[in-house]
């Protein structure tokens, strides 16, 4: 039964991958990538990776799709027809694929319990984590404690993405002056009146979704979920709100400057736990330092705080990314009219393109 489902889902995946590759309408393609992600999440569930499935669903089908759409809104929706057959790409791909297939030949079979993956270090996690960490969700234990530093790095990656996207896109858009309230509503755009159901539903759903996010955050120790998933869900709620009421409605609720700082706060909370254990004379992120006489409690505390940091940074970064994408006006410059920015000898110590934009 399980096998049949697996096979079918795999077949679906292949189908989708091919269709996405051939689809030249990028709007459709981004929807298809959403479907692709959903199938993946289904497969992950079949393969018992519920946490991964959880994350993939939230990220792949939710955030990624929104990101792709936001980009399409600022760029073009259609892909040009390629001019020539990409023989080189075919060659490279064929070669790489052949190499990989060659490599699979000596792999242990799918699901083989005696594979090295299961008999190696993982055995320790599977057998000892209840005693050492004491959390039902093994994934959370490994994630936040055994390999807590990886997760710290992962949070660093997310934070970097936030920084990177802000660096790229935040300038050139008018930012609300700090402290000033958002400008009052000018006029209700007609389309809000067009969708009373959505308006009502979104307002009604908001608190529940946010509550659900908190539940996922807290329940990560016991079931699938955790800081990352919670953060994504939290942001998804706000994005939902933003989709219906506009980004500045969200900004009024969570000011951009504040959110940008929150991205840092989460990472600092995580790192702060590490620094605390360090000053207590233990290793970085050795939570047992927090409660020396009862290491398991220390682990619980550490994991709780660390997950909180993850949740804060993830939701803040996702929100920042949404802000900068959604609030960026589309510039419809045709390549003809655009002056070539020849920054040769002419501009000594000149302004970058950013400044030029801000000035105009």
């Amino acid at each position: 039964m399980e096998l049949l489902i697996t096979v079918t889902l795999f077949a679906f995946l292949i189908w989708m991958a091919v269709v996405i590759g051939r689809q030249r309408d990028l709007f459709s393609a981004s929807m298809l990538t959403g479907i692709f992600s959903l199938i993946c999440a289904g497969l992950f569930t079949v393969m018992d990776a519920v946490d991964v499935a959880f994350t993939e669903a939230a990220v792949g089908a939710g955030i990624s799709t929104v990101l792709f759409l936001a980009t399409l809104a600022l760029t073009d929706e259609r892909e040009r027809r390629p001019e020539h057959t990409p023989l080189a790409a075919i060659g490279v791909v064929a070669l790489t694929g052949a190499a990989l297939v060659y490599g699979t030949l000596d792999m242990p079979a799918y699901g083989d319990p005696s594979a090295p993956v299961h008999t190696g270090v993982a055995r320790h996690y599977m057998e000892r984590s209840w005693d050492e960490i004491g959390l039902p969700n093994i994934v959370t234990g490994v994630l936040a404690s055994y390999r807590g530093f990886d997760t710290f790095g992962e949070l660093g990656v997310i934070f970097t993405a936030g920084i990177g996207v802000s660096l790229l896109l935040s300038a050139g858009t008018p930012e609300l002056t700090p402290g000033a309230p958002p400008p009052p509503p000018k006029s209700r755009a007609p389309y809000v009146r067009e969708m009373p159901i959505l308006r009502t539903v979104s307002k009604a759903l908001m608190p529940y979704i946010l509550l659900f996010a908190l539940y996922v955050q807290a329940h990560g120790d016991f079931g699938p979920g955790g800081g990352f998933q919670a953060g994504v869900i939290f942001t998804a709620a706000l994005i939902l709100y933003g989709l219906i009421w506009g980004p500045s409605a969200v900004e009024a609720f969570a000011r951009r400057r504040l959110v940008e700082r929150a991205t840092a706060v989460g990472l600092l909370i995580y790192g702060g736990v590490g620094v605390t254990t360090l000053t207590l004379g233990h290793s970085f992120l050795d939570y047992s330092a927090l409660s020396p006489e009862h290491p398991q409690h220390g682990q619980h505390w550490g994991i709780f705080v660390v997950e909180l940091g993850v949740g804060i940074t993830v939701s803040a970064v996702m929100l920042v990314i949404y802000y900068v994408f959604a609030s960026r006006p589309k510039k419809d410059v045709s390549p003809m009219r655009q002056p070539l920015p020849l920054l040769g000898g002419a501009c000594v110590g000149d302004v970058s393109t950013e400044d030029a934009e801000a000035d105009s």
Partner: protein
Amino acid sequence: MNLVFGAAAMGLLVTMALAMFRATVGPSAYDRISALNAFGTKTVLLIAVLGFLSGRPEWLDLALVYGLCNFVGTLAVLRFSKYGSLAKDELASAEDEP
């Protein structure tokens, strides 16, 4: 019992395939949007069924997330297809600001 769940799963897979077919051939954007939405719904159901199949129904959380993401995604898509942008602001559009 498992047989029932298995049959349900099969049925879901078939409907998923149908939704995918629609998403693949289109032809209009709205076909694809509704296909995406339908597919999302089927996935939620499939996850639920899988939970029961493997005897761990406590992951219904997961299905909830799917439902939510599906909703957000569909909304974004709809909005995009109608206004060509996610940015149109109801309170103050960016273009109006100094």
